[in-house]
């Protein structure tokens, strides 16, 4: 059974051009539905409006038009009007782990931060949860007291994943989660994400320009071009039989590719 977890209706957003030109339309009339347990991939080149869409879905920015409903709650309503807090139920992993981890804090503190915001658990229990989560993403306990500078790129991204998952969110938005990493590390992190998704019952929204990353995790895909959705459909269908010329061009840029099937994925990701 599937249920609608997150629904966006008619999202549009424009920026005022600081140079005085006409407003820049970042996204226009985007609607999407995310069902629990089915990963959505948002595919598009830079400038297609991916970042804006992601910021709106995360609640970092309010859309000019449209709304985002998460579990029956309009996420852009002021927090005071909401009956239940959504804090911690939507989380994010950013592209560049050098930038997304505060260099002044220890790994343990970074991972614990979203828990502290929830104010639900005692300190001792939090410590336990942090160590468990670090173990789950493959970070050794002795690294918990280190600063991010002492970690490799892949390790940092694992820490960022741990921070996102510590609150057991319903939805995790991944913003180019592997594009800042070296090729072999990419594969490990993608494997980890796929593994964690099944274990923790996550729903992933994956934002990427890279068809292979999308293919590795997404169940269905939406293709953005200049702020509009030009094509959407199940990952298998869309990646094997693209209809829109832009999607075809994107796929043609990747040498070998198959959609995500039931038979695992690692053999296709030798990028």
């Amino acid at each position: 059974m599937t249920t609608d977890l997150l629904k966006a209706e008619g999202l549009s957003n424009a920026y005022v051009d600081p140079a005085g030109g006409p407003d820049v339309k970042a996204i226009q009339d985007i609607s999407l539905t995310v069902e629990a347990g089915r990963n959505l991939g948002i595919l598009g080149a830079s400038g297609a409006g991916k970042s804006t869409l992601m910021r709106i879905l995360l609640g970092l920015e309010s859309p000019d038009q449209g709304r985002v409903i998460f579990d029956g709650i309009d996420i852009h309503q002021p927090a005071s009007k909401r009956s239940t807090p959504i804090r911690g139920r939507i989380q994010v992993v950013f592209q560049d782990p050098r930038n997304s981890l505060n260099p002044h804090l220890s790994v343990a503190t970074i991972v614990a931060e979203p828990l502290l915001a929830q104010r639900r658990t005692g300190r001792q229990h939090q410590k336990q949860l942090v160590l468990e989560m670090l173990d789950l993403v493959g970070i050794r306990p002795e690294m918990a007291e280190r600063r991010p500078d002492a970690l490799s790129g892949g390790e940092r991204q694992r820490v960022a994943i741990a921070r996102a998952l510590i609150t057991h969110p319903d939805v995790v938005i991944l913003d180019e989660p592997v594009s800042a990493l070296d090729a072999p590390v990419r594969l490990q992190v993608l494997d980890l994400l796929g593994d964690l998704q099944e274990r923790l019952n996550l729903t992933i929204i994956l934002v990427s320009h890279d068809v292979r990353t999308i293919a590795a995790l997404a169940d269905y895909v939406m293709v953005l071009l200049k702020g509009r959705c030009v094509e959407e459909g199940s990952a298998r269908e869309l990646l094997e039989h693209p209809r829109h010329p832009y999607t075809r061009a994107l796929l043609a840029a990747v040498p070998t590719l198959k959609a995500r099937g039931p038979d695992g994925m690692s053999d296709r990701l030798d990028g």
Partner: protein
Amino acid sequence: MSWRSLPRRFRAGLLGLGTICGAVLIGPLLLGPAPQTDSEHAALLPPGTRITIVEMNDGRHLAAPRVLEKGDNLILEGRRQTTEVGKSAVSTRTSRRAWLGTDRFGRDVLHLMLRGGRVSIAIAGLGTLIALLVGIVVGLTAATAGPLIDGILMRTVDAFLAFPALLLLILAASVLRPGPTTLVLLLGLTSWMGLTRLVRGQVLSIRERQFVLAARVAGTPWYRVWIWHYLPEIRGPVAQDVALRLGDLILAEATLSYLGLGLPPTTPTWGQLVSEGHRVMLDAWWLSTLPGVAIALLVISCALIGDGLQDS
């Protein structure tokens, strides 16, 4: 981080500031109470003069650079006056050196400078602390509370900056005739604007960093975002500004005191010593010069620390 690895200017500045602060803190304790003064015989003595202090049977003290014996009398020779007293009226004679000379009232300049330095540094330091707190809070609020509040706060800053700070200080000081608390508040509240601008600019540049966004997504409360994410990132430039600000406020306090708008003359600060000395500059160069040098050394030390922080 080892001492050697710090920039040279920073080390020099820290050494200067440390020496001066250490001297004014520990110096008065080592020197003990201020020696007896004698404004008639021991006034305006140059640095290094040995002074003989004569205690009379009736409890009065006389002090003079030269004391000669002549029969049953002592002759006290001062710069302006010579007095003869009978030996029988004298109970004790002691002597000491005025290492930095004496002022118009025969007071020991070393004592005055050490005690005055405490006041000068404490007032400038507390003023800087107020400027720091106001600057950080207003700057962070402006950068994070949305365009309306940002606009109001930054226009307020502009309005404050439109007046030269010194004029503002002189105006306020001549109306209020400040005591120590008022003076600290005045100094602090006329010098927070630069820090506000600095903090706002720095925070605007890190507000969109991904670790800050991740904290906002997770619902981290604003005060924790300030303390965990903003303050550690801006502490370098802020420390640098604070060092320079401390030097500025030392100078501002000295200027007010020099103009007679500072603390009442019963608490002699360095600025007041310079001011008193300049009336007798030709007779006694050391009176203005030595506190002036102390002010200059302190300000230069602060500037060196500021520069060094920029280099590191």
